[in-house]
């Protein structure tokens, strides 16, 4: 990889510095990668659960965990890129539900094919993402506040519109409608390998992580994202289209939220309008555990994916271990804090060694 030395405030200076780059020892290069701490933490947690939870040790369990991780991890790909770009999106959790509800209600009550409804839903989600980005850039209000606003708007609209259109607070069952078979095969399909069920969301997740990794590390847009997250003013000074990059990032999050929304709708055929609240924090946690800096400009795709995997592993590992479920959240919190601590420790270690 070419960008492992990227300092935390790259500020668009990367290309010109290429000439005086020193190649450090391989161990320092490894330690300075954003995902290294997360990978260590994931390894520790994995070994821990493999030791204490016998039922954790099967291919089936690993794929259940990967499925759980993928439903968080897909949106986290976008949220991680957005955070590298220096912004937050708190509306991502409810937008997943909005996307599914929009598709179900639109198709059901207009009697149109579900595929048409899905495309309309995508356009709507992208419009919300655009609006989020546009408002952040045009008003200068922090994205935390703007997207908190859209979070509440969407949450209310999910309930209000669902009730108004369907007369109940859940969407109608769509499994008998035209287009269902195609859509459910695309978004909620699964296949068997040696008796193990693999959901296609896991494959999609890997693909999205690969694309995100490629964009961030190998393309000009990736450099722009690090630059606007590191220091937007200097990025603008060297000609990075800051507004377009940031709006694009918000729309990426919307697209991925829509994608998971489609999975949820076509796997469960009906959605409760109150769902999704709280998941926005899981996406952010995945990104942070995966080494993304909350201040922007630092992080990578593999790290965010490992962060989501740690979440899936922890939340289900507790169940596999057969621990008292009343303590579920506490265990989860301790695990996540531990992951972040390991992360920080490794990062400090790498900084010290670089100086010495």
């Amino acid at each position: 990889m070419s960008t492992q030395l990227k300092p935390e405030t790259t500020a668009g200076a990367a290309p010109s510095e290429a000439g005086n780059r020193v190649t450090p020892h391989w161990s320092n290069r490894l330690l300075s990668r954003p995902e290294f701490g997360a990978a260590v933490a994931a390894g520790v947690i994995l070994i821990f659960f493999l030791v204490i939870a016998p039922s954790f040790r099967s291919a089936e369990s690993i794929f259940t965990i990967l499925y759980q991780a993928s439903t968080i991890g897909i949106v986290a790909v976008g949220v991680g890129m957005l955070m590298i770009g220096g912004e937050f999106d708190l509306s991502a959790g409810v937008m997943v539900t909005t996307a599914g509800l929009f598709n179900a209600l639109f198709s059901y009550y207009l009697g149109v094919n579900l595929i048409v409804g899905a495309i309309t839903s995508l356009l709507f989600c992208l419009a919300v993402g655009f609006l989020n980005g546009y408002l952040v850039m045009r008003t200068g209000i922090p994205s935390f506040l703007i997207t908190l606003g859209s979070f509440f708007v969407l949450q209310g609209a999910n309930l209000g519109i669902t009730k108004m259109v369907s007369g109940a607070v859940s969407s109608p069952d769509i499994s008998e409608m035209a287009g269902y078979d195609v859509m459910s095969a695309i978004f909620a399909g699964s296949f068997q390998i040696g008796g193990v069920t693999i959901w296609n969301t896991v494959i999609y997740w890997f693909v999205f992580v690969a694309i995100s990794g490629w964009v961030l590390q190998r393309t000009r847009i990736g450099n722009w994202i690090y630059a606007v997250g590191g220091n937007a003013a200097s990025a603008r000074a060297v000609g990075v289209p800051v507004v377009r990059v940031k709006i694009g990032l918000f729309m990426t999050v919307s697209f991925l939220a829509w994608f998971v929304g489609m999975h949820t709708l076509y796997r469960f055929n009906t959605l409760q309008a109150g769902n999704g609240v709280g998941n926005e924090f899981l996406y952010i946690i995945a990104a942070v555990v995966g080494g993304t800096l909350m201040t922007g400009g630092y992080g990578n795709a593999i790290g965010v994916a490992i962060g989501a995997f740690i979440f899936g592993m922890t939340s289900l590992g507790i169940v596999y271990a057969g621990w008292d479920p009343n303590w579920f959240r506490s265990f989860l919190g301790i695990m996540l804090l531990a992951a972040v601590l390991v992360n920080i420790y490794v990062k400090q270690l790498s900084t010290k060694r670089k100086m010495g």
Partner: protein
Amino acid sequence: MTLITPRKLAGIGAAALALALTLAGCSAGGAQDNNAESNNDTGGNGDSGYKIAMITHETPGDTFWDKIRAGANQAAKDTGVQLTYSADPAADKQAQLIQTAIDSKVDGIATTLVTPDALAGSVKAAAAAGIPLVGFNSGIDQYKDLGALMYFGSDENLAGATVGDKLNDGGVKHPLCVIQAAGSVALEARCAGVKSKVAGTENLQVNGADDSSVVSSLQAKLAQDPSIDAIVTLGAPIAMDALKAMDQAGSKAKLVTFDLNQDAAQAIKDGKIEFSVDQQPYVQGYMAVTALYLYLKNGNDIGGGQPVLTGPSIVDQSNIDTILPFTKNNTR
């Protein structure tokens, strides 16, 4: 960033308007096709002049509460009562909402008593202001002490014990009781009721706000402990998730649930769910309003000093054909 110029503000306004129109657009499309809503029924003979406030601890967007509201709305129409509804899952905010109702001098208050200690002050304030108050849905053991006149709901412990008895009859040894809202007194009471009859009962917490996470957690639990021979879910949507998890894990466990919705009713008809313990939320909402109306108009005391039980009403293959159409109306 610079300050917002009027031109930019206009742009923002236009964008917001576009969003609003999109939202309005998709709801208008549905309104014309709206099927008959349960509370569109006719009934009632005008305005009786009473104002009643209903306050609950509803979690927004839960199908269960939607039925309570449907029942309350129908009762308000039938009796010509002017009903105001408000809800907050946080105990202190619910107490504040009761206080707000007292301040606005309503004629009667119907409230859930889910956190009796937190609500005691407001309930007593209602009595002090001379406003009759009835409890419903939760608080069966405490409503009298708090000074509520009547109570409509099911006894969660009794409902759980009923499930436990039926599981015992089916030879179940190790049921899993799935709690979808952490820290809920009512849900814990149901599981405790099951455990009082089947000693091998185990509880599992899941995140009820995320269906895919519910499925994964249940699937993990079934893999961890293959001796689980029954799953007890405490809400209809969770039962549908449990079916998926059992399918994934290849589990042969029996599935039993609390509450009903259209999908769960269909699953009972198809034999996928053994039975449901229905506490008839529609009746809870309906009776709470109607009882206040009768008390105000006629001095009646429904239940005669005892709680009025709306459940446990068992729905299984023997009676599902009668009940299935009502679930489609959102009344059962």
